[in-house]
């Protein structure tokens, strides 16, 4: 078996597996439920990073997951999207009541999940336009929907390029190659806005951004907030949450969610740091 598939298939627990014809129906009140999720790094012993995560995100909600470096925030974001570098030791991730942990990343994208990367890959020669069209076509194909015409897509693409404030010349070139940190994040927002996911996960999208770029990211998220769409915003700092007001804030420390609360929790972290939670994380 090729190594890159291992993560998606090598789970130790058995689950109801979704086949490739899985097509979620568009309806409200879908829920993402993470149940007692324990995750290790593939091929590394004693590497458990997530130690029993429980999380429920209802459609239309915006959740923030905050935590110090090394708490497992990025792992959680990547595992939700199906990154093949991890092994799920225990627990499950359900979307609309169905387990998704055996689904390939592309299948998760087809039913409406999206991950904005902390470090988007630089891909020489692949033009953002072509790539996004291919992604949109694949999604339409999988859902049995009609593909968008090149003309309509061009129009949509140009609109969104303007909206996220990327230099149009830049996106004619290679995907992310030669982009500054801010440009890469804007490009993630561009993809988010074109692909219009049901559940968007932003993995430290705010890192390395100046205030202007931060505003653009927030604007993108805020303009896309809707009763049919949920967001999980993974961040170290509170500052992005000045622009995006979350419904729920979770504090993740050492692989466990140690506290859940309202937006005020973010301000608490801002004021007192993560140290106050360290003992909770260790003893839980």
């Amino acid at each position, binding site marked *: 078996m090729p190594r890159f598939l291992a993560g998606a298939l090598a789970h130790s627990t058995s689950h109801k597996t979704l086949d490739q014809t899985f097509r979620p129906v568009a309806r409200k009140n879908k829920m993402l439920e993470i149940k007692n999720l324990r995750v290790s790094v593939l091929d590394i012993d004693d590497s458990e990073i997530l130690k029993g995560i429980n999380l429920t995100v209802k459609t239309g909600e915006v959740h923030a997951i905050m935590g110090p470096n090394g708490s497992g925030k990025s792992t959680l974001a990547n595992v939700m999207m199906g990154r093949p570098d991890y092994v799920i030791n225990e627990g499950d991730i359900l979307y609309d009541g169905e387990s998704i942990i055996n689904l390939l990343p592309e299948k998760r*994208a087809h039913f409406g999940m999206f991950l904005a990367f902390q470090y988007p890959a630089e891909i020489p020669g692949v033009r953002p336009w072509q790539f996004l069209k291919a992604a949109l076509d694949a999604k339409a194909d999988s859902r049995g929907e009609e593909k968008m015409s090149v003309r309509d897509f061009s129009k949509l693409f140009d609109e969104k390029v303007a909206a996220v404030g990327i230099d149009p010349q830049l996106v004619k070139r290679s995907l992310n190659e030669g982009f500054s940190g801010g440009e890469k994040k804007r490009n993630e927002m561009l993809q988010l806005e074109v692909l219009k996911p049901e559940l968007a996960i932003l993995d430290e999208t705010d890192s390395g951004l100046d205030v202007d770029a931060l505003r653009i990211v927030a604007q993108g998220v805020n303009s896309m907030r809707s009763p049919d769409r949920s967001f999980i915003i993974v961040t170290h700092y509170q500052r992005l949450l000045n622009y995006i007001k979350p419904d729920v804030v979770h504090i993740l420390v050492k692989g466990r969610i140690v506290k859940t609360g309202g937006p005020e929790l973010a301000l608490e972290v801002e004021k007192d740091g993560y140290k106050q939670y360290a003992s909770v994380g260790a003893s839980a």
Partner: protein
Amino acid sequence: MTLAAPPTSVDKYASAFESLDDSGIPAWLFAIRRQAWSNFSDLGIPIKRRGNELWKYTNLRPLADADFEYGRIGLVSLDQITSKGPWDNAWDTVVVVDGNFSAQLSSLKARPGLTAGSLADAFAVGTDNVESLFATLAGRENYAFTALNTAFAKDGAYIGIAADARLETPVHVVFVSSDLAEGRATYPRLLINAGENSSVIIVESYINLSESPQLTVPVTEIFASSAARIRHYRIQIENEKSFHIGTTRVHQKADSSFTSTSFATGASIGRNDIHTQLDEPGAECKLHGLYMTSGQQQQDQEISTTHAKPNCTSHQFYKGILSGKSHAVFSGRVVVERDAQKSVANQKDLNLMLSRGARIDAKPSLQIFADDVKCAHGATAGHVDRDTLFYLRSRGVDEETAKAILIRGFADEMLDEFEPAALREFVERTTDDRIATLLAESDILGTI
């Protein structure tokens, strides 16, 4: 006292040389051929690799051991050629079948400033004083393959561009090996003579209609007069049992510009050896290329430029995509001679490795004898990492499509250089076909 080993495989070519029909060839050519044969018979096929920089990484033993017939000319139809290689009815096309010009298959419009046709005819009538050009860049030196080609030189193609002529329609020279069953040796020869301030687009392609192992040993000599502009493309798509050992020699005068892009995917052992001599101030050359290898193929790029005079510029940029158990060599060399102040030279070779069994030997080198120059070089062998693959898949692109997109993305920079529409379409189609094979033999793509 030890006896030197006799030159390898000379006997295999001797009877063909002795039976050459010399009637009607000019005396000067006869003399050049005799001398070339004499050189080849001293050298033999270069199978020695240790201490032999030119052939250090490529094993020619399979070629040296093989037998090839010489002299038969097969029947070829236009359809066979157009379905195999690049083609555009609008181009001026010179077709050379098994080393011999075919008037029937060629399509040449009367175009002011262009002389295109048989090299044998040019020899016979002395077109543009061909005697003063032929084998001045390749064929008299101590190199086995140019010697072998020159020993058998009797036909091929001649392309002359008159001074000040600006030709916008590409001239396509197709060297075809016909579909005769037996393995044969052919020695294609091309001579391009661009007059002062002229401009021309040349497509030089090598296609093989046979499925048996062929030996193609082409030599191309290109003369760029002052301020001439030559846009050259070289397409090598011979069958994967064949041997293609090509040599291109370019001489550039003041302010001339020579840009060449090579596309090499064919042959069991393929060699693209090109040298540009920047012999007067202000000359510029760009040597680019894409090579793709799979199975047991060996693809060898021997790229060199000599800056002989000041204010010249050279760029070497090649890309390789390697899969299976294939092997590629990039040997790039730039020599900046003592007089060549204000030279600018750069050199780059990037390789995408798709399998553990594939191997690249990249050897960029600069030899600089002037002190006021700007030179840079570099070579890399990389792979598609799993982060990149996951990134594409997370957007909904399935794994196989994502891999194809990534390989194609790597190649695109070179494919963009193929400007004539029909040529561009051809290299894109061929690349996409090749990607399927490369992927099938890939075992490390997206795993590291």
